[in-house]
């Protein structure tokens, strides 16, 4: 790498001592590129033994990669921490301006450790960290309000990131999110609760650095090529036109859209809550992450009248995506666009992960209808599509007025362990299910993926492209291969939507002017190594692959590949365990 690139600088922030320092970690960035590759190594250093997710010892690591801010579509920040939801490694990625801000403040990674006694927010600039009193922000009921206050509190309009937690993070809900630039999130696995446990209400990062380029001519050439590819590609056009919400109708058509806690894989309200219909009736604006021309962020507006006065309205702007329309729409039997958007808005205001929240509500609804839990626990009646009560329940999850909500705030795995209904508690490794019931690839992927997310290895995509599934062993190997390659994308913090543009050849070319000379083989090898480093770390943090449980509901509701067989998936998991044990012992 270019030795003058500030990427190698790691900012350490100790909240307990209110101190910070900067280390040159060229060793890590040379070897592991950046992003997830470097974050795994930093996490190993910071947490040499097993730690509790909500203890001061849990480090939060933000990292970005060499392409960030130099090329388009590489504007993701990786966050690594121990997850209060799964009790294991937590990894979450967000876009917005976060990655660019970190890069141009002159850092490749930021580590936040310790905990503050009093609420605070951090203002991070080049060579400077301010620990500002956040007492006045603590307890504000709407996370959007916190964003508005922080916007006025610091410099750097347009080129800073403002990360913040909502009340869910303060109240340590295991799936609390971190919101950045209003519409982007470190959504999954509970980073919001980890920051809440450290009493960090917000993080503002600002920077305007130059990044020195080794081969300036070549850099501009490659840049222009990637830019043309990005704005000219069909794949990218899809994300720009309708966004990820484009998936609702086709998934429903093939019978892969989880509906009413996966009692069905088709939703009769799909035509209403699909991307096409929302775009036609509600789409107000499309916006982009910094340094990405695609603009996949779709923002709808809803106008609601106040009941107490005629002609008195409030207009709210709400961003939507496939996963939200699934988890807070089909999964809950919510059929009206405005209703889904209102639920999304509530989740945003509280600062929760939308997928986990929706799946928790879905589990609770089914448990309630089956009489496993009663109104004594839920305090309000639960029924599919009853959104006024769902909004109340979301607030209860945050406030936790009784033991039941205290449990529901820890996710479906913990709640069902306590109350029953594990067979329909749709989580994998403790993380709630994403919106694809496409077949074996999806289920195996959720189970063996490092984050227990559909994004780890995209099994749901494989399901949609193959006619017949291969053998369980082959399927596992195929998915691991994909996850290995994605470690490269996630170390260069390339948006996964741009994976077809950043193929091996283009990545190698893009790295060259920055002083990296990789062959295809070396790059793939590095991906493989990062994958196994991460798997090893998971095992060290207590991950027991042999204890992975698949909720039986998965086998009761048909997929486009028919009803799934438990034996097939068990064979696949056995093979995965064998491979992991073999590799991690090496």
């Amino acid at each position, binding site marked *: 790498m270019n030795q003058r690139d500030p990427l190698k600088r790691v900012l350490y922030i100790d909240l307990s001592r209110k101190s910070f320092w900067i280390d040159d970690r060229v060793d890590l960035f040379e070897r592991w590129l950046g992003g997830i590759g470097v974050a795994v190594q930093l996490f190993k250093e910071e947490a040499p033994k097993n730690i509790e997710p909500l203890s001061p010892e849990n480090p939060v690591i933000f990292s970005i990669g060499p392409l960030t*801010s*130099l090329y*388009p579509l590489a504007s993701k920040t990786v966050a690594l921490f121990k997850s209060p939801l799964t009790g294991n490694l937590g990894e979450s990625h967000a876009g917005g301006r976060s990655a*660019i801000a970190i*890069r*141009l403040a002159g850092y490749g990674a930021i580590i936040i450790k310790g905990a503050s006694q009093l609420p605070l927010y951090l203002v991070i600039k080049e060579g400077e960290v301010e620990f500002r009193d956040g007492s006045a922000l603590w307890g504000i009921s709407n996370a*959007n309000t916190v*964003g*508005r206050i922080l*916007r006025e509190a610091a410099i750097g*309009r*347009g*080129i800073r990131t403002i990360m913040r937690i909502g009340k869910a993070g303060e109240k340590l809900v295991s799936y609390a999110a971190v919101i950045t*630039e*209003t*519409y982007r999130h470190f959504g999954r696995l509970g980073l919001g609760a980890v920051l809440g446990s450290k009493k960090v209400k917000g993080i503002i990062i600002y920077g*305007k*650095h*130059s*990044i*020195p*380029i080794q081969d*300036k001519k070549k*850099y*501009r050439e490659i*840049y222009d090529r990637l*830019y043309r590819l990005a*704005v000219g590609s069909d794949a990218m056009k899809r994300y720009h036109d309708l966004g990820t919400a484009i998936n609702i109708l086709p998934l429903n058509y093939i019978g892969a859209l989880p509906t009413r806690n996966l009692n069905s894989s088709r939703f009769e309200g799909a035509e209403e809550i699909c991307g096409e219909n929302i775009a036609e009736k509600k789409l107000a*604006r*499309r*916006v*982009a*992450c*910094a*340094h*990405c*021309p*695609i*603009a996949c962020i779709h*923002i709808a507006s809803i106008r609601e009248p106040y009941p107490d006065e005629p002609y008195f309205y409030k207009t709210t*702007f709400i961003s939507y995506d496939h996963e939200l329309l699934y988890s807070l729409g089909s999964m809950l039997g919510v059929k009206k666009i405005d209703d889904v958007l209102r639920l999304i808005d509530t989740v945003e205001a509280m600062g929760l992960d939308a997928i986990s929240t929706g799946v928790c509500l879905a589990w609770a609804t089914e448990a309630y209808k089956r009489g496993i839990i009663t109104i004594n626990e839920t305090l309000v009646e639960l029924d599919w599509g009853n959104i006024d009560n769902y909004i109340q329940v979301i607030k209860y999850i945050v406030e936790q007025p009784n033991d039941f909500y205290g449990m529901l705030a820890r996710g479906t795995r913990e709640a069902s362990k306590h109350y029953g209904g594990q067979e329909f508690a749709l989580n994998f490794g403790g993380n709630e299910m994403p919106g694809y019931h496409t077949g074996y690839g999806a289920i195996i992927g959720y189970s063996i993926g490092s984050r227990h997310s559909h994004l780890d290895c995209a099994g749901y995509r494989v399901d949609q492209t193959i006619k017949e599934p291969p053998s369980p062993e082959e399927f596992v190997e195929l998915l691991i291969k994909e996850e290995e390659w994605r470690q490269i994308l996630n170390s260069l913090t390339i948006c996964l939507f741009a994976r077809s543009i950043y193929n091996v050849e283009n990545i190698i070319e893009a790295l060259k002017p920055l002083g990296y000379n990789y062959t295809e083989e070396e790059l793939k090898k590095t991906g493989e190594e990062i994958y196994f480093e991460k798997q090893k770390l998971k095992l060290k943090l207590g991950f027991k692959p042999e204890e992975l449980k698949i909720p039986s509901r998965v086998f009761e509701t048909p997929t486009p590949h028919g009803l799934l067989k438990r034996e097939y998936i068990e064979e696949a998991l056995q093979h995965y365990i064998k491979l992991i044990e073999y590799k991690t012992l090496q």
Partner: protein
Amino acid sequence: MYVSSHEVKRLAILDAERCVGCQLCMFACSRRFGDGGLAKSAILVRSVGGIERGLTVIVCRACLDPPCARVCPTDALKLRKHGGVFLDQTKCIGCRNCVEACDIGAVFWDYETNKPIICVHCGYCSQFCHYKVLGVEKTI
């Protein structure tokens, strides 16, 4: 690739409402000098009080009687034919008067050289504006 400044063209905001906030224009502006980042950018895209309220694009509008030039104590800002200014780096003493004088906020600051960043209306940024927010127009 550049439009020569002698052709007297002006960077124009064709329709700020179309802006998606991707900021590729800002990166392009800095990239003119070969390096990455935003230290040299003479254009800024920011939200108007949160992304939900929309975006605004701040860039020099090539004033015919530019206040930035009027307050320059060393004549480092020279009038450009048909609007706007050029910066003579050798004369600039980094006093920031020009920054204060521009009500649009379109004189940016280069913290690395401690000099203002002045838009030269080359139009390079507009080549990366996929949404036709920016364009180049003739001043005559």
